[in-house]
């Protein structure tokens, strides 16, 4: 591991913000706060992308994640009226267990790289992350996945429709319907 003090300030600041926001996402009691924190996280990650010469990704990240997906989340939260602290707090034991599990994994993964030599990032050509270049790659080398991701969207769409379709059954009816199977 390199010396932290040698690190460029922007990286450190961005990383700090990212991690802080991420932690808030995880720990916030209010789901809406979590969403907002997550959006902030995405912003900071986008900033990382810019640092990493991935300008297109930075934009897409903002649009797709922070824009579309997070709005979807917010929308659902509002729709289901979950904006308040409805979630019962888990016992500390769970928190400890989860922290241990995650921490263990983190430690092990990072420890695995102890042997990896210190490699200075080579730096990419700045233009690689521009939409022009990426588009070319996407339409040549990555044509097949690009086309096939269409299938994914059709599937996701049909699926969402299938599940979202209303068919007039009330909660009570569903409860009744399920009672006999549950008891059996």
């Amino acid at each position, binding site marked *: 591991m390199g010396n932290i003090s040698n690190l460029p300030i922007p990286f450190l600041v961005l990383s700090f913000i990212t991690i802080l926001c991420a932690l808030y996402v995880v720990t916030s009691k209010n789901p809406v706060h979590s969403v907002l924190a997550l959006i902030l996280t995405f912003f900071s990650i986008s900033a990382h992308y810019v640092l990493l010469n991935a300008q297109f990704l930075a934009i897409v990240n903002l649009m797709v994640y922070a824009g579309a997906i997070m709005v979807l989340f917010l929308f659902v939260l509002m729709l289901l009226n979950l904006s308040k602290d409805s979630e019962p707090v888990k016992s500390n034991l769970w928190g400890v267990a989860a922290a241990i599990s995650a921490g263990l994994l983190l430690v092990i993964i990072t420890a695995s790289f102890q042997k990896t030599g210190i490699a200075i990032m080579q730096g990419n050509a700045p233009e690689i992350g521009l939409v022009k270049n990426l588009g070319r790659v996407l339409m040549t080398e*990555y044509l097949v*996945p690009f086309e096939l991701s269409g*299938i*994914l969207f059709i599937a996701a769409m049909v699926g969402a429709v299938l599940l979202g379709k209303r068919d007039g059954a009330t909660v009570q*009816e569903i409860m009744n319907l399920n009672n006999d*199977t549950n008891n059996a």
Partner: protein
Amino acid sequence: MIGILIVFIGAVLVLFLGLNKPEGGMKTLSSLVLFLAGVLSLLESLSILNFEMLSNWAPKNMIDFSKGDLMFVSLLAFVTAAIIAIFPTVEEKGSDRLGLMMLSLTGAFMMIGADHLVMLFLGIEVLSIPLYVLAGSDKHNLRSNEAAIKYFLMGAFSTAIFLLGCAFIYGGSGSLSLSEISLRMSIVGHLSEFPALIKVGVILMSTGLLFKVSAFPFHFWAPDVYEGSPNKVTTFMAVIVKIAGFVAFANYLQAFEALATWYSKWLIILAVCTIIFGNIAAISQKTVKRTLAYSSIAHAGYLLLFLITPMKANMWILFAYSVAYALSTVVLFYFNDKYSTKKEYGFGMFSGLLKNNQSATILMVISLFSIAGIPVTVGFTAKYYLFTSAFEVSPLAVGIALLGSAISIMYYFKAFKPMFESVETNTNETHASKIHFVVYLMVAASVIFGMFPYLFERCF
């Protein structure tokens, strides 16, 4: 490629044509489309037909179906056709379920043909996302809902882990193409020289795949999701996901052949654990579906043994095992679906079957023999090939696998008790009903493949 194309077009057709019709109306069309896809892939794999245009259009670096892969494609197409054909449809309008199943199948094809991590990832997702939906497609059944959300959350979680693995591999090898990786790895040569990134990546990616094939200790979703999902979906999941997962797993591990001695070490341990766990856990299950779920976990264990053998030359063994597993599992799930009622979904559902329906009894007996690996069914043949090839690598693991298949008798044969019981009641209407002819064909196939096993070797 032709398989993906036809199935996709078929799915779109089915979705649009069946928009306002009951699902049953599209049943024949979809199974015919799948059958066609299967036949064409088979012909292509046997070099009788050639779809050069298609393969020229798609850059080879992404997706590349070898002859063997095409066999798997046709197998999965046939099996899905059979599943759609023999299982009853829901009464609702719209053929979304059929369409989703077919779309999911294209994902399986992508996984099989994937030669690039992006493709592999995309395949897994195309396979999984419709399945998340399908698992919950019995919308008013809370169990189905629960299955969907469990499957989705755990699936997404495992995808994240899989992706982390991809990233590490990319970082370690500098490439995303499997053949490229394989090439670079073979140049580096010595095991210790590989960056730790690759090993971690391989493990993390394997975790994602092990999750898909429900190997111990990443199997937790399987029993619950299998139980909660509608029977048809469960069958599809148990067969297609597992086979596609293993083919993808095998293809992907082949790229890391240079690490073979390393990864076979832990694969053996995993395989043994999975076999022991799957078989033992299945013993105490009360419902047929859960028993079959654990049985499919156990089968994942046997198949993991395949991964420690020299895979490239042995893909036909995987194929043989897939055929055996698919044939018997589909038939058994079919009977479970046919005879289970709201009140009785344990083994008691077969009670008095012999008296009411002899042919069903015989079909079930043969399928159970096949899945338990008793000669002369294809189940035995496949197990024999698999164990023999794995024996050279690890006799001990094979020994445990053999013991595992002995334990498996304990739960497979549970069905015989009610079946052969003499019951006082008169004819059971459900039992007496006719059995779909495809089931006969499948059982016949499992006997024929069992008697003439060299067909497998010849086809590859």
